[in-house]
């Protein structure tokens, strides 16, 4: 039993932390809110150069062949810095789908470009008033010969406006399918959403969009199985991101409480404040360990569905709590936009809501714990 990372993983951590200090300080995070593109090309290129885009892609395709533990370290650091980039949708979700379900030709077409930062793929999963389970995929995919026609509406698609492809989940007569859709194709209409973190997410309206069969991924009707598998890894990454955010919020609030003086003493010397922070510190250590366990379980090839859901649920809530406590500790100044803590507060809540909300995660965990087949 060992809770330490390997020296190589620790080196990755310091590399990413250093990268984030240079490329993603708070000034950049602020600049990207509401920004037309939503990420810095220089940041994205350096990510590629550092091998971070192909971190988990096979070495034969230009990746680093690393696994869930390394992705966890990466995401913890990205979360700590609130680093704005299309990494998650492209390098974790889309790359993961292509890795599991892509044909040799599809892998050849995309892996190299993904690893080099020359392509962005935006995942289009959720739909208006629909949940996160398979039944929520109601966009239709109708096949005629070697062409599919897609119709429906997708929401919360990140970076759709700069994507080379949209990875779209749609339902055929056989089940859920996965398609790589050109956002510039006829029948695709993008509308930017206004989000609580100012990041570029889109409504994607699909109105009779033609997609060749060669752009469909995997076994017909088995798209949901692939998506679920990739989502497991995604949930762990987001759990790590949440814990990185939470850790930083704790550090900021703790430091503030040592500097802010009221009643003749630093406010951190008052028990109410000290105890808030002690509670958060406890949740942060526990949440990190839960995320690490989920990542390790995935890395070992063991069933990780329950742990992945738990990791995202607990980390998401711990992060929300940490940032809420931090806002409280910052007092009136924390309410002012110029102070950085609010950057964490808004993103913490947002992270709970995206890529598997609490209802979805709770149901997954409950099914695993309570239902007979879930053992």
């Amino acid at each position, binding site marked *: 039993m060992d809770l330490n*990372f390997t020296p190589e993983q620790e080196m990755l951590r310091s590399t990413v932390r250093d990268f984030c200090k240079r490329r993603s300080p708070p000034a950049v995070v602020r600049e990207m809110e509401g920004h037309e593109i939503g990420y810095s090309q220089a940041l994205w290129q350096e990510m590629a150069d550092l091998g971070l885009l192909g971190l988990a892609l096979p070495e034969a395709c230009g990746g680093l062949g690393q696994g869930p533990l390394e992705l966890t370290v990466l995401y913890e650091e990205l979360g700590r810095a609130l680093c704005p980039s299309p990494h998650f949708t492209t390098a974790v979700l889309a790359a993961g789908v292509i890795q599991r379900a892509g044909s040799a030709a599809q892998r050849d077409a995309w892996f190299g470009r993904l690893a080099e930062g020359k392509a962005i793929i935006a995942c289009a999963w959720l739909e208006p008033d629909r949940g996160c389970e398979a039944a929520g995929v109601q966009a239709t995919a109708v096949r005629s010969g070697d062409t599919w026609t897609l119709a429906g509406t997708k929401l919360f698609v990140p970076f759709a406006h700069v994507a080379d492809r949209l990875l779209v989940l749609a339902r055929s007569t056989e089940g859920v399918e996965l398609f790589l859709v050109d956002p510039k194709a006829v029948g695709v209409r993008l509308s930017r959403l206004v989000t609580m973190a100012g990041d570029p997410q889109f409504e994607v309206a699909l109105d009779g969009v033609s997609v060749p069969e060669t752009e469909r991924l995997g076994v017909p009707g088995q798209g949901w199985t692939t998506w679920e598998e990739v989502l497991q890894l995604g949930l762990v990454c987001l759990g790590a991101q949440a814990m990185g955010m939470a850790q930083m919020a704790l550090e900021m609030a703790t430091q503030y409480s040592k500097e802010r003086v009221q009643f003749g003493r630093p406010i951190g010397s008052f028990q109410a404040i*000290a105890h808030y922070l002690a509670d958060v510190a406890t949740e942060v250590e526990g949440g990190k360990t839960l995320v690490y366990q989920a990542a390790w379980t995935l890395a070992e090839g063991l069933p990780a569905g329950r742990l992945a859901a738990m990791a995202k649920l607990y980390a998401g809530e711990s992060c929300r709590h940490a940032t809420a406590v931090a806002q409280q500790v910052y007092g009136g100044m924390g309410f002012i936009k110029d102070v950085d803590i609010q950057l964490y507060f808004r993103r913490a809540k947002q992270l709970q809501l995206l890529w598997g909300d609490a209802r979805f995660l709770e149901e997954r965990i409950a099914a695993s714990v309570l239902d007979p087949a879930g053992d």
Partner: protein
Amino acid sequence: MAALNFTFEPEVETFRQEVRDFIAENLNAEVLSDAELGLAFGPKSRGFVRKMGERGWLSLTWPERFGGRNLSAIYNYVLVEELNYGGAPGPGNAGAVVAPTLIRRGTPWQQEFFLPKIRTGEIEFALGFSEPEAGSDLAALQLRAVPDGDHFVLGGQKRFTSTAHCSQYIWLAARTDPNLPRHKGVSLIIVPIDLPGITVVPLWTIADGRTNEVFFDNVRVPREYLVGELNQGFAYIAEGLADERYALIPVGQTLRQFEALVDWVRGARRDGRPLAQDPRVRQAIARLACEIEVARLHKLRVLHQHTGGENANIASSMSKLSRTHTEQRLDSLALDLMGAAGQLCRGSPHVQADGWFEFEYRASVLMTIGGGSSEIQKDIIARRFLGLERQ
């Protein structure tokens, strides 16, 4: 080389199974009838502890010169966790608190006299720390130990000396020098419970159990019973807590309670439909499941740091906070899910889950108080981990 790993070595797992087999064979209703709050045990459970002693399980981590096997703390952790999980008596204060301190600080005579009896499970010690005016503020303790020739004369009172009624000795913190600063004039003294002048008075708890007040009226205890050096008591206590804290608050019972709750939910029906299908129940169980797993992992953190030679104080404080508050939430939730039937006690018609959760709801009140209250744990984390000044 360091690398994340959430499994234990095969030898450790083999030992775990041995302990489980032992519990299955030896734990019965009679042994259990002594159990009070899971902290104390009495004459009926003594036989169970003695059998563990025969197997060398009460001295796993002791140096070989004291009859131990010099094993890693992981073995102690597994033993204590499995016993706690199985609802069985643990090594008691003798094994968890007294023996490690005697090994570190005891005089040769004390080591020769007490360690063999602790090893075999023959003797138990009641912890005599708290007093009416000294709870969280232990340094306020007033019980005097006045030197008188080759004896100390003890005078004063202890409170919450929980196992005094079934222990042979008291592990006593007494003030030996009232002129030194509060936390420096205290000594640890072993006191045979049958010395003249000692009166044990029961205090009955809301957990159907017993703790005690102990009155000392001119009790003469030989100087040989002073542990280590004079006026070093606080340092020894602090040292002991740092090393043994991982053994004192196991999470096994919390895990077992969660399993029992899940079992109960799976079998429960409301208006002809399974309760396990109710979305509100599913949500609550899912959230609790996360907290339970985190409580388990906090304990692993303590073990990891302790076996790695680090000071596991902070991890221990966090572990106690996590486990105790989670268990309190679990017990309250269990009764919520049972509805009105949750109020029924063991033995009542229509009682649910043998009244276990109703009992634990009462018993769990002490968990966030005894062994260092949650407020003290948070102060420790705030000051020593976050570096915040004290008020």
